[in-house]
């Protein structure tokens, strides 16, 4: 049984996540500052070749976390499938990355390091933060124009594991070896560019650094031993399915807060499912054969046309929690896809409208005018007012 991750599996209220998020953020900010990333001149040195600190820190961090994940998932401590992986949108990532890189060299910071810069009393960092806020708002304002680019070439969650058909542990070891080779090149390049500008080369490949990188390589190679362990180790006992009910509003809320925190399965049959389904839902016929491979620490929500009485036999192979959507797809379309009734209370109306807009992508209209009974205010005779 996987114990981790603690959050993201729907077992704990999301608000509890704020405390670890704060602590992890603290560690992140602390290490970034110790790396020198609270100072624009240290960050931009990367792009002039004489000090590739940014590249070294970033790549070592990626390799360290990757090997950690490989070991934890290989040992069965963490469920790799329950960790959120950003979806791939080829054009948005290509264009967004390039523009962010230009912004990086112009401002001297990236969004995260600008916060560390500000925290170290670097006022250009604060101005960069202001720019990031303005740029984000600008994106929202121009969204209708950039939407085609934002959504083009959507590949869903796509990892190099999926692409190459190799286990995570193998790729982690390959990336670790590749990174160390690149570090050796980076050290040489620094020497070259430093000599050209008559600077002292950083020479960061100290015995301690060599020891750390050597340990990483050893751990990466050792983690490939987990390949001998079959991936599906906890499929032994199969408890009976307990089905809990969930209504459309609660489902919509969970999907918005954490789209990948639950798995949705459409039971209405292949044609109906292909034509129209709840976002992120799988059609049952597509996944029927692999139900046992679904991560058991994320709840599975199933729905039919209206109420579903008989659940398919295959579901009993799923070892996690199963929910049934009350009223099925019909209830979903009534509560979420249909425009809400303006006669609802303003707070309800606004919430329903936001949910409706989130799932349909339709621009929202202004909130309905609140009709208040006209009350004629009489001036208080006792005085004391400000009039």
């Amino acid at each position: 049984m996987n114990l981790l991750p603690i959050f993201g599996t729907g077992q704990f209220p999301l608000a509890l996540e704020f405390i670890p998020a704060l602590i992890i953020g603290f560690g992140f900010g602390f290490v970034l500052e110790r790396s020198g990333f609270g100072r624009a001149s240290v960050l931009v040195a990367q792009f002039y070749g004489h000090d590739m600190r940014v590249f070294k820190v970033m790549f070592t961090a990626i390799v360290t976390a990757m090997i950690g994940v490989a070991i934890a998932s290989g040992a069965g401590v963490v469920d790799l499938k329950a960790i959120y992986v950003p979806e791939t949108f080829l054009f948005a990532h290509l264009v967004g990355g390039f523009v962010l890189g230009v912004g990086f060299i112009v401002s001297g910071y990236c969004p995260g390091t600008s916060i560390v810069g500000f925290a170290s009393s670097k006022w250009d960092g604060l101005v960069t933060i202001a720019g990031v806020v303005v740029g984000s708002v600008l994106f929202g304002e121009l969204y209708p124009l950039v939407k085609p680019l934002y959504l083009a070439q959507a590949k869903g969650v796509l990892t190099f594991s999926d692409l190459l058909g190799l286990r995570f542990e193998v790729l982690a070891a390959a990336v670790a070896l590749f990174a160390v080779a690149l570090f050796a090149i980076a050290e040489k390049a620094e020497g070259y560019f430093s000599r050209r500008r008559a600077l002292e080369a950083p020479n960061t490949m100290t015995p301690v650094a060599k020891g750390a990188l050597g340990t990483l390589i050893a751990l990466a190679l050792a983690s490939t031993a987990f390949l001998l362990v079959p991936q599906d180790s906890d499929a032994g006992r199969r408890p009976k399915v307990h089905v809990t009910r969930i209504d459309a509003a609660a489902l919509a809320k969970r999907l918005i807060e954490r789209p990948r925190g639950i798995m949705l399965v459409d039971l209405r049959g292949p044609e109906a499912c292909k034509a129209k389904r709840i976002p992120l839902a799988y059609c049952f016929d597509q996944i029927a054969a692999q139900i046992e491979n679904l991560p058991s620490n994320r709840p599975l929500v199933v729905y039919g046309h209206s109420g579903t009485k008989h659940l398919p036999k295959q579901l009993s192979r799923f070892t996690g929690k199963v929910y049934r959507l009350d009223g099925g797809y019909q209830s979903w379309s009534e509560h979420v896809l249909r425009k809400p009734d303006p006669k609802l209370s303003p707070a309800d109306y606004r919430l329903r409208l936001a949910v409706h807009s989130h799932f349909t992508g339709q621009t929202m209209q202004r909130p309905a005018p609140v009709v208040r009974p006209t009350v004629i205010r009489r001036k208080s005779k006792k005085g004391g007012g400000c009039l």
Partner: protein
Amino acid sequence: MSQIKEKPLWNPYIAGVALGLVLLAAFLVLGHGIGASGASSRLGVFLMNGVSESHVHASQYFARYFAAGSHVLNDWLVFMVIGIFGGGLVSSVLGGRNKSEIVKGPRVGVGWRLIAALSGGILMGFAARLARGCTSGQALSGGALLSVGSWIFMLAVFAGGYAVAALVRRQWQ
């Protein structure tokens, strides 16, 4: 704060291991990586909401921040950024690096430097929304999980930086 003598930075490889362990903690505890630019976006929407509520609620992109029914700033991303600020503050004070300053090369004035910081920030804010994350959320977090899009993003960031570096050299050297 200037009483503390400036201490040397960590060796980048050791700092990288430490940063990787923080990222690993995020994966194992939170079930997702680190995020920095999301909070700025939420702050922007919060400020806009103060100016014109109906305008923000009518926006196709911003509506998602209200859809869950909670306050715009009530999100783990905001707490993480408060943590990043706190960590940066403590480390810079202890390291003797917390000095009020505008970082720039000797050949540009303060005005130009701040205009560049603002423009670069605007580009990054826009780009981070387009790419659904920045160097923290995409390059580091998605990169460590071997997401194809995150690696494309990361290579594109370096490409963008190197492409323009020669043009803005004056600002730094």
